[in-house]
């Protein structure tokens, strides 16, 4: 079983993810961030369970609902917040916004607003690891909606034939924007498709952070040992609308939302730790308060930070070449 310390760390991380979304929503309402939010509330156990099981050298690729993966993998909250606000000190200098970031210093291969597009990229990063014989594994986060993108299919086939060290973590939150998974996939569990690529697909409770952790660890060990890819379908739910401004109720029943809120991954771990007497209710509140105040602090700094200049830089599209010509 996982140590109490590790589990507390995961609990704290889940709170951080949630607090970040709440802060972002607040800023969105105040028009202090640009673009849309894509709240990760409700799905925290996936990002945190997965990333807690990874080593620092391991890599992740993410998607539009990427704030959770970023933070869980180790993104700096200030830089992340700056990016959401289009500030110069953001990860992408304000160019990308929260859907377009990448930083290998903490193993973040990138995210993008094009559903499914990072799945082959994650797979290619795993190919690099295999070619080099370095032992990192790569996690490719994707939504249920991404399962019907062609390039995702192509990428998973590559992972199968070349036995690449990649873990596809499909966060099945039952909807792609407003379209339910039943409307867009004719089988009960998309994990079934992994078989067609020659690797294992598992369906797990994505709100159980300890389970997600354990499954990721196993898949990562398998990948590192040359056993190839794994597909984990994590059943979960987003509490909020698809994007800021969407109440999320036009296409989902209230009862369904309430039901899933009862399965809150944070509450679940918290109650378990309390029941085990490994955590006091007061301790939880303190932990939570600390996270929220850290975020207030970060937000304040980000709000005071500079915007980029109103100028374009043609050179910014190319990395500088170091090739000399003799």
């Amino acid at each position, binding site marked *: 079983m996982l140590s109490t310390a590790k589990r507390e760390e995961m609990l704290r991380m889940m709170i951080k993810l949630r607090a970040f979304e709440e802060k972002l929503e607040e800023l969105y309402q105040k028009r202090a961030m640009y*673009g849309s939010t894509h709240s990760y509330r409700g799905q925290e156990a996936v990002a945190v369970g997965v990333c807690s099981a990874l080593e620092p050298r391991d890599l992740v690729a993410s998607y539009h609902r990427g704030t959770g993966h970023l933070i869980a993998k180790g993104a700096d909250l200030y830089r992340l917040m700056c990016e959401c606000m289009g500030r110069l000190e953001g990860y992408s200098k304000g160019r*990308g916004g929260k859907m*377009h970031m990448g930083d290998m210093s903490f193993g973040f291969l990138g995210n993008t607003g*094009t559903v499914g597009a990072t799945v082959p990229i994650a797979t290619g990063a795993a190919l690099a690891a295999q070619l080099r014989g370095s032992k990192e594994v790569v996690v490719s986060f994707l939504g249920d909606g991404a399962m019907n993108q062609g390039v995702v299919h192509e990428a998973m086939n590559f992972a199968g034939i070349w036995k690449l060290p990649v873990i596809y973590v499909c966060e099945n939150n039952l909807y792609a924007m407003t379209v339910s998974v039943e409307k*867009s996939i004719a089988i009960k569990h998309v994990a079934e498709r992994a078989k067609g690529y020659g690797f294992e697909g598992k369906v797990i409770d994505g709100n159980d952070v300890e389970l997600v952790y354990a499954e990721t660890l196993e898949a990562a060990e398998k990948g590192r040992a040359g056993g190839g890819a794994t597909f984990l379908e994590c059943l979960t739910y987003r509490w909020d609308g698809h994007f800021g401004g969407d109440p999320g109720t*036009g*296409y989902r029943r209230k009862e369904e939302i309430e039901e899933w809120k009862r399965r809150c991954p944070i509450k679940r771990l918290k109650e378990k730790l309390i029941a085990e007497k490994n955590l006091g209710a007061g301790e939880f509140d303190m932990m939570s308060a600390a996270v929220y105040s850290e975020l207030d602090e970060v937000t304040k700094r980000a709000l005071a930070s500079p915007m980029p200049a109103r100028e374009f*830089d043609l050179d910014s*599209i190319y990395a500088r070449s170091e090739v000399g010509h003799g």
Partner: protein
Amino acid sequence: MAKAEKLQVQGEMKEMRLQEALREALRYEMARDKRVFVFGEDVALFGGAYGVTRGLLQEFGDSRVRDTPISEAGMVGLAVGAAINGMRPVVEIQFCDLLPLCMDQLVTHAARYHYMTGGRISVPIVIRNKFGTRPGGGPSHSSCNHGAFVHFPGLKIIIPTTPADGKGLLLSAIRDPNPVLCFESHHLYGVKGPVPEGDYTVPIGVAAVRREGKDLTIVTCGGMILKADEAAVELKSKGIDVEIVDLRSLAPLDKETILKSVAKTKRAMVVDEGPMVGGVTSEIAAVIQENLFSDLKGPVVRVGAQHIPPPHSPPLVEAMIPDVDRIVRAALRLVEGKKPS
């Protein structure tokens, strides 16, 4: 717009937004022609990411108004097949940044089918999508790639600006026996204007002169019409009389209207929200100088987006896409006969 095009219709008019006018076209044609159906991500239950298809599910049922999985290439491919087999599909692609995903089906298949089957088969599909660069959109959600499609023979491309054109062009597009790409401007969805009721079409391939003038022609399309118009007002106050040609279609391109205007004003500027390099501004500049070289009093000036991906942060977006000031300054340089610096 300072001087709206006079609508060539007798019937009743209704004031509405572009978004609603597009919906009108869909409703009108779905009621009239059973072959027309609509599909795309979130178009049914949700009514489309920008509300254009709102209410269609209720009115026409879930067989003809379908939500789809996230499969852009598949969507266009299915549309091609359904069209060949007798239907008139209208597909919504949520934004033009996703068109590269269905590029093969668009440019090699939909566009070439008619030609490559010796005219035996045609592919009457409409692919609607939103375009436009704005703060917060960022590199995968706010491109303007309409210019890229001009290079591929066999597609028709429309860009409505007024609500009336929205209805009239979209109706023509659905009835057209060819694949039509409809670019709908983010900046114009909410802009209101009078729209004729009933069976109202605007021909594809015919530009509109939105403002008459004698000193300089500005050729433009999509959301930039707003900036061009503002610039024209400002230039007027400086004694420069601008004529504005709204392309409305990029393919076929209405060279006649463009050349007629420039033959009169003898100075031309092309303003576009997409990247200048290899885009609409280049094509039109090339055509104008090729045809009117000896009439021109100065080079055809291009004012387009800088050659970077669409950024997220407001000041970066502002620096990237043309604004009134850039247009005005370029016009002044051109009219004063100096070389643009």
